[in-house]
């Protein structure tokens, strides 16, 4: 009984496996399996049927496909683990083929990922390390030597409650996340303690990615209003600072609200502000 049930579910799942190519920009749900282009051709019409002639066979076969956030590898197929839209990016410049597939999902809770730049709040100072709250399941540890020009004698000036902009060097589900404020060459490149004043607020992760996209109109319009400074953390935290408190608050409200506004509503608000 159990075996029969197992077989039927397998066949059902196998029937439902669709080609990743056809599902691009469509909503996918967790549990769906996706076929990559090479397998799809192989599992298509058998030897009796027509074999599609592939003129660019070299580029398709033997390419490494990267499965990004929201996808997992199950055998030779991709398994969807988050609900959202499936996206694909071709590899640029003739590099190793395959491209990247990922699921564009929305969530508020951040899970530390290696290489992400985040804003953290220092919660404790114990011996040689700082404990930094990044919004994940546990606080990340930041060594006092991980700042530019820091040595054992020359300690960085970091207090409890300071805001830190840094990146993760270790971030997996088995270990405590570790972050540093230094890049691989040993330079700070903008990381470290974020200055005085300003306002820190939290938004969804999808909004951060939308604002940091290369062609984001919102930021271009915001930048024309008045002099300001923004820091985006991939953990959903944004820090803003402007010359007066009122300007800072206006900016924070705009950024929080622009997630749910259409382009027209946004333009209305900006034109009102420009007056």
């Amino acid at each position, binding site marked *: 009984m159990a075996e029969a049930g197992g077989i039927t579910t397998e066949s059902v799942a196998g029937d439902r496996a669709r080609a990743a190519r056809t599902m691009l920009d469509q909503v996918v749900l967790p549990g769906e399996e996706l076929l*990559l282009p*090479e397998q799809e051709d192989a599992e298509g019409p058998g030897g009796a049927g027509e074999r599609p002639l592939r003129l660019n066979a070299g580029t398709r076969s*033997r*390419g*490494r*496909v*990267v*499965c*990004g*956030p929201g*996808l*997992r*590898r199950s055998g*030779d197929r*991709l398994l969807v683990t988050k609900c959202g839209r499936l*996206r694909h*990016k071709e590899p640029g410049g003739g590099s190793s083929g*395959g491209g*990247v597939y*990922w699921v564009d999902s929305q969530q508020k809770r951040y*899970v530390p*990922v*290696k*290489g*992400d*730049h985040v804003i953290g709040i220092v919660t404790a100072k114990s011996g040689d390390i700082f404990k930094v709250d990044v919004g994940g399941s546990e606080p990340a540890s930041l060594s006092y030597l991980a700042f530019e020009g820091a040595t054992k004698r020359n300690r960085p000036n970091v207090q409890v409650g300071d805001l830190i*902009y840094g990146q993760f060097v270790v971030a997996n589900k088995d270990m405590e996340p570790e972050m540093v404020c230094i890049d*691989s*060459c*040993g330079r700070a*490149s*903008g990381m470290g303690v974020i200055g005085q004043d300003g306002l820190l607020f939290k938004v969804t992760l999808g909004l951060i*990615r939308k604002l*940091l*996209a*290369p062609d*984001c109109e919102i*930021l271009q319009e*915001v*930048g*024309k209003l*008045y*002099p*300001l*400074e*923004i*820091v*985006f*953390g*991939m953990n959903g935290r944004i820090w803003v*600072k*402007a*010359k007066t408190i009122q300007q800072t608050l206006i900016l924070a409200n705009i950024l929080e609200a622009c997630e749910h506004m259409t382009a027209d509503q946004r333009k209305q608000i900006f034109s009102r502000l420009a007056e």
Partner: protein
Amino acid sequence: MAAERKTKLSKNLLRMKFMQRGLDLETKKQLEEEEKKIISEEHWYLDLPELKEKECFIIEEQSFSLCEDLLYGRMSFRGFNPEVEKLMLQMNAKNKVEEVEDEAVELDVSDEEMARRYETLVGTIGKKFAKKRDRASYEEDENGHIKPTVKVKKMFLKPQD
């Protein structure tokens, strides 16, 4: 002569951390490789046959930075924080172009300033070599530059009847 020979820094000194901060990535990698080559026979290694990895065509990555080309997280607009604006140009250019070559070497001192400094330099150095009598003639011009005032040559004055 001792003054002609350049002071050679020892290898140990060059390997110290404070000497390596200014080095490029490439020179650092070369130094590391050289150190690795000095591995002696005392280093232990596993004597296993080479295991073949199963060819996997799918790589799992959890980071969004690989998927979407995101801009650098720190931004400043209309000159609020000039350092951050400089960083923005650097970082975002790095994403678009792999090799960023400096178009023109930025001059530390502009040409005009150089000419001005040189002008005053001539005065101060000239003062050093002038005789004691002539040193009094070096006066401060407008702008505070030290220049020798042109001396009026004393001519013979004919006595008037």
